């Protein structure tokens, strides 16, 4: 194992690989990525692959807007020998109550201000775009046809390969067990395979971030929360946009091979790492999905899995430096890491290099939780 590095990135998911790639592009010669499992083993490889700009806070909107610009040209910009399968099939947000409709209207004002092409749909429009949807209780809906999906494995692979060509070294099955510090300064990362001297560490471990922070004596209020997903057998295309429903707290989307991915957020889910799957989830989810798409009652589920969101107190990412630990950077998407990864990778690399960042990430510094400066994201599932 290598003895020293300019920057050590912890986490081999989409954010870790994108950050490493951007660091190498900015001229860092000796960048190392540590991953305790395999590339994509964590939240990236377990996510629902959706990419949207229809958020309720300015920073979430902006980071996703810039990320979509990256996704649009990713095969070329990363010289990927394949297809990251970015498809702009849209995100349809559906509400069943006046309260949810008011949130969509509020968000729409923000989207208009930021130039995100979101529009309100009549029930007839909804029926035209998704003929199989049950429009019965729909009060309001919005759509953004720039939103869509990409293949999380291929996106990460594209960054992994591009980073590798620029000299980034990846150590998989290598777990961080501790750090060495001199005063507030990080001097080395300790792993189960040996020690790497470094003065800069990027924490891109998603739901595991607080455990890494704890090793540095930093109390990070980002909690892992399990989310489950089911996938159906492949079907002919029938559901173009991802449909997100704030009443059911669910989403449903058909991916490129024809399978439908669906999940919902369980408000009673206890915090913590848990990879179990439950039959109760399938039962609840099936009811929610069939209510929205009656034809789905014919469809067979073939698999179910679980992964984790890192839940921040305001539903926004946590990016940048950490007060009290010199050389420590957080790169956490907090429940939307995959879709924000292209831009988070760019921003964190700029931050580590001491450059001005393309977007003002100071607002998303971890300090905000101590100061109580929270801007809460309302549109999460």
């Amino acid at each position, binding site marked *: 194992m290598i003895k020293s590095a300019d920057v050590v990135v912890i986490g081999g998911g989409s954010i870790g690989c994108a950050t490493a790639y951007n660091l190498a592009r900015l001229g860092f010669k000796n960048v190392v990525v540590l991953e305790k499992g395999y590339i994509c083993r964590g939240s990236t490889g377990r996510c629902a692959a959706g990419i949207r700009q229809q958020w309720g806070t300015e920073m979430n909107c902006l980071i996703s807007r810039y990320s979509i610009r990256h996704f649009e040209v990713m095969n070329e910009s990363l010289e990927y020998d394949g297809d990251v399968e970015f498809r702009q099939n849209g995100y349809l947000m559906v509400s069943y109550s006046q309260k949810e409709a008011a949130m969509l209207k509020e968000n729409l004002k923000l989207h208009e201000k930021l130039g995100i092409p979101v529009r309100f749909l009549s029930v007839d429009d909804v029926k035209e775009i998704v003929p*199989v949807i049950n429009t019965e209780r729909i009060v309001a809906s919005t759509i953004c046809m720039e939103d869509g999906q990409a293949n999380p494995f291929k996106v990460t692979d594209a960054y992994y390969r591009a980073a590798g060509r620029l000299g980034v070294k990846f150590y998989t099955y290598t777990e961080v067990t501790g750090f060495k510090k001199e005063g507030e300064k990080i001097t080395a990362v300790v792993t189960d395979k040996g020690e790497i001297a470094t003065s800069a560490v990027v924490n891109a471990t998603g739901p595991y971030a607080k455990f890494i922070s704890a090793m540095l004596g930093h109390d990070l209020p980002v909690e892992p929360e399990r989310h489950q997903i089911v996938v159906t*057998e492949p*079907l*002919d295309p*029938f559901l173009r946009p991802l449909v997100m429903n704030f009443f059911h707290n669910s989403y449903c989307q058909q991916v490129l091979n*024809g399978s439908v991915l669906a999940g919902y957020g369980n408000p009673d889910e206890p915090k913590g790492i848990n990879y179990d799957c439950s039959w109760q989830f399938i039962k609840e989810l099936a009811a929610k999905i069939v209510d929205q798409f009656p034809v*789905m009652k*014919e*469809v067979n589920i073939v698999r179910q899995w679980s992964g984790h969101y890192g839940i921040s107190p305001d539903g926004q990412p946590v990016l940048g430096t950490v007060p009290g630990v010199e050389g420590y950077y957080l790169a956490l998407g907090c429940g939307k890491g995959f879709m924000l990864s292209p831009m988070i990778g760019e921003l964190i690399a700029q931050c580590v290099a001491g450059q001005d960042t393309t977007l003002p990430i100071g607002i998303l510094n971890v300090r905000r939780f101590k100061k109580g400066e929270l801007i809460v994201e309302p549109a999460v599932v």
Partner: protein
Amino acid sequence: MRIQNHPILKFEKGRRVIFTFNGAEVEGCEGEPIAAALHAAGIRVLSHSRNYKRPRGFWCAIGNCSSCNMRVNGVPNVRACVEPLLDGMIVETQQGEGAVGSGIDG
């Protein structure tokens, strides 16, 4: 040849019933797996492979392998090897991945 003893399913072989396979009338026994009735009628091709469209026949017989996914009464991806046959069923080989939304009651 007709399946009499299924490895995992117990079924009562009922009266003779008529169903259709791709529009043609076929006779089977009520309650036996659809694929058993097709097999007994000499029908060997139940589906086609995804990429090369090669014929696929009766294989695992326990609802696992997808080799017998068929359209039954308009519902796609029915495992014909474990689905009990009923009088008047409309059984079809499936085109593509299977289309939802054209089931008889949907």
